[in-house]
């Protein structure tokens, strides 16, 4: 592990990504302490420009809510939705990919058909359908994002399983009489997991972007301080007070950039062979 860490810290983009990610995490952690009031409560005059009033250093939005408070609390929402949706997507993807890759045959065919169906249907469209059916509270939106994001991890897991399932250590386990579930989750999965975990960073980056797009279209939960919500609100006053949309967009950009840089850094550190390219 220290070697991986040293490899990781040697790459400047990876270090920048880590620093940015820590910054966003710090924002999320300190939100309740720096802005103890409800971020969606009225705080002052509407549409105060940034750096005009020391009380609202990022200004206020159309209805007089503190933008800085919404940015800090929004970091919590984005990270929370990103992490939970990613966990859901990876969990579904790993189980389906593992079973398909391990069993092969008809089971594999059926599961891959389902995966293909999910990949053929544009995932944002499926997200819209899910929101129509199950409503748009933060819980349903998070689950829906997880549900539309699993096919890629499933394919990745399946590919790993296909290459691992006939190795000696698996055959040894089979000879010892281990049950299938034990072989899949106890023996093969730990070896198949590293590339999937690295890929989780891509899933998380996309999940954060999906949530913000949904919130921008006002189809996400309006009762939480989400960056996408704020951009959607700012659209009404875009002509003059463009900063209302601009500020949260930068927050999303920084977060997604941080997540993908960290993912790439991890990937390079774990696969030193690829790094030299």
């Amino acid at each position, binding site marked *: 592990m220290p070697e991986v860490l040293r490899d990781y810290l040697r790459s400047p*983009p990876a270090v920048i990504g880590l620093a940015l990610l820590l910054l966003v995490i710090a924002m999320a952690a300190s939100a309740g302490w720096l802005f103890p009031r409800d971020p969606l409560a009225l705080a002052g005059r509407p549409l105060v420009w940034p750096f005009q009033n020391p009380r609202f250093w990022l200004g206020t939005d159309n209805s007089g809510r503190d933008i800085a408070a919404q940015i800090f609390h929004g970091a919590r929402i984005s990270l929370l939705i990103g992490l939970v949706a990613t966990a859901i997507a990876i969990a579904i993807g790993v189980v389906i990919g593992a079973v398909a890759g391990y069993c092969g045959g008809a089971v594999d065919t059926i599961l891959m058909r389902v995966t293909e169906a999910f990949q*053929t*249907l544009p995932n944002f*469209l499926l997200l819209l*359908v899910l929101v129509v*059916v199950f409503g748009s509270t933060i819980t349903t939106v998070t689950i829906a994002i997880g549900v539309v994001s699993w096919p890629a991890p499933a394919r990745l897991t399946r590919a790993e399983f296909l290459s691992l399932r006939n190795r000696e250590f698996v055959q040894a386990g089979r000879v010892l009489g281990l049950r299938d579930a034990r072989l899949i989750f106890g023996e093969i999965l730990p070896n198949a997991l590293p590339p999937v975990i690295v890929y989780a960073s891509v899933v998380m980056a996309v999940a954060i972007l999906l949530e*913000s797009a949904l919130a921008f279209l006002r189809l996400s939960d309006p009762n939480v301080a989400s960056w996408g919500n704020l951009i959607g609100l700012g659209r009404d006053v875009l002509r003059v007070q463009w900063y209302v949309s*601009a500020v949260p*967009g930068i927050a999303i950009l920084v977060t997604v950039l941080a997540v993908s840089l960290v993912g790439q850094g991890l990937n390079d550190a774990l696969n030193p062979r690829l790094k030299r390219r």
Partner: protein
Amino acid sequence: MRILALAGRRLAASLPTLLLILVGVFLLLQFAPGDTVDAMMAQMGGGDAATARQLRRFYGLDLSVPAQLGNYLWRLVRLDLGFSSIYGKPVATVIAERLPATILLMTAALSFAFFFGLVLGVVAARGVGRWPDTLISTLGLVFYATPSFWFGLMAIVVFSIYLQWLPAGGLEDITTAGTGIWRTIDIARHLVLPTLTLGLIFLAIYLRIMRASMLEVLNLDFVRTARSKGLDETRVVVRHVLRNALLPMVTLIGLQAGTMLGGSVVVESVFSLPGLGRLAYESVIQRDLNTLLGIVFVSALLVIAVNFVVDLVYARLDPRITTGT
């Protein structure tokens, strides 16, 4: 001919996928609160229960779910997508009206992303490790992380509001309804910002893939042979490397077709373009489930069609594919 047969087989294999999508989404929409009749009654400003019952019978909504599904699929075979009560037209007509704008936007965004992704990827790979590479790779990372709708809004602020170079939305200017070449120019002007907005994230992906695959191919033996024959570097890249390095890019188009269609929902909403994506958004807001299901069907068809074309192009670029099977 062999190529067509192969691609045709792939096309036939996508039929079960299409059926799976339709049945899945149809069953899913059964759980949606409110049906078409509820939406119509709301549109009419309310009505009594007897009218609702009558309407439900008229639209076959009083049948059991399997029967409704059977009816729906049977109508689909005859290319009848049902009736949109919100627009007061058959769903097929509503979608046909909106499809051209989306196809135009997607084609433009794809061409933009593919062309500049290719050029930037080649430039980055040629100067690997030096400042052009660093600059292009950094730009790629930033573009990848930029939310498209936000980029669109900021582009409107800069190019439409401050500089007033380009229109902020719509597909064409109705006040100066021109004909022929002027109309084409007008539509092109309206599509510049949406194309950039939708294409940005794909540009980032393509340039990254192109750079990686260029680097891989540049190290292969046949490139060394070409160089040792005395070919100059431009010829080596254009004639020998490019064709091989293009393969992953082409695969990616097929994989990303769905993502691009999903992205157009947001982009068309930002620029109020009358396309399929905006229709999807409107039917979600208005609970027009028939139209939504129709859009799901047409989008899946579109993705399958793109993949069919990609198969053909791929086989053309890589002759080994046809002899292999």
